[in-house]
């Protein structure tokens, strides 16, 4: 205390301004500024910069994923558009009356008998039908097989096939297989979700 009391700060005045006091205050201001920058502002800037960099990186990544998603969605819609016939054909339940109407252009159906149903390639259901019919010529059968390509159901003509000549017609016995998707309800729910 004695030492402090011994230190005498000289008082220098220029135009009535205490130069030493102002200098000390200025020094104090500089010190406070430096301390604030070092311990408060600099860490804030660092955190901000770090978060900003991370944000831009994430945003870039998000935009890339979004572009990919849009691209995939576009491709999917295009694919659906191109294959509408196939996709709807697989979703339809088989209607015997409709089939009779369709086949009547090529043959006279006497009898259709439903046989067993089984799972085909995990996602499909195959139902077998046996048909007894009359055709005028083999050409009717060829036309029938060709018309199946554009038919609303997915039908495969399969063996055994039996051709027997009658007086004015050919008696035809054949097996057809109807294919549809296995889980129609799940698919409908999935379609609604999109």
């Amino acid at each position, binding site marked *: 205390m004695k030492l402090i009391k011994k230190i005498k700060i000289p008082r220098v005045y220029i135009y009535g301004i205490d130069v030493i006091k102002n200098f000390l205050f200025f020094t104090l201001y500089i010190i*406070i500024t430096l301390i604030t920058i070092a311990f408060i502002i600099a860490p804030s800037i660092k955190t901000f910069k770090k978060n*900003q960099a*991370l944000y831009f990186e*994430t945003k870039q990544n998000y935009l890339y994923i979004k572009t*990919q998603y849009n691209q*995939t969605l576009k491709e999917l819609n295009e694919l*659906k558009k191109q294959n509408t016939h196939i996709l709807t054909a697989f979703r339809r339940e088989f209607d015997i009356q409709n089939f009779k109407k369709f086949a009547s252009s090529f043959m006279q159906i006497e009898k259709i008998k439903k046989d067993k149903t089984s799972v085909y390639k995990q996602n499909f259901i195959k139902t077998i039908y046996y048909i007894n019919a009359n055709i005028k010529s083999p050409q009717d059968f060829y036309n029938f097989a060709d018309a199946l390509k554009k038919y609303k159901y997915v039908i495969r003509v399969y*063996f055994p096939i039996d*051709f027997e000549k009658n007086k004015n017609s050919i008696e035809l016995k054949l097996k057809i297989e109807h294919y549809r998707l296995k889980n129609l309800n799940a698919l409908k729910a999935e379609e609604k979700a999109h």
Partner: protein
Amino acid sequence: MRVYSFKIPKKKPIFKEDTKLWLIFIAISLLLYISFSLFLTFKAYILKKETKELNKKAYELKLKTMQLNEEKEFIYIQKSVFENIMIKNDLTKQQIKNLLDLIPDPITLEKFYIDKNKLTIYGITPTKDVYNLLMLPPLESIFEKTVTTFYKLPNGWYRFKSQNYIQSEENETY
């Protein structure tokens, strides 16, 4: 003893004017520094929050993209199954067409039965030689085993039953 002065006493302030100015200046500066720092912290917090949200959105989009890809795959599967079925229909049609083209003019076809590995033909031939010369060779070239039975008709022609087999299980045609 009382002391009297000719001057009127003035109130002496704790801080002089210039000291007050310095203190206010330093206080305002400090306030500005802290405000700036708080602003940056708040901005950083907002950015962090937005980054989190973007990450969440990106994850959801990734999942959706995966679902879309699965859907695409499934469409390709359906397309492939459909095309396969149509190709097989074409093959079946072609096989029957080929079989009917195989029958020579003198022979009359009455009935035929095609299964996966078997073809049975019923018909009428004027002579056994006509059958053996015109129909048997192509059948033998296609099938591994051919068995033919003839029944003589009252007019001298023959009714025949030709049974043809393929052993291979892969070939689901004749």
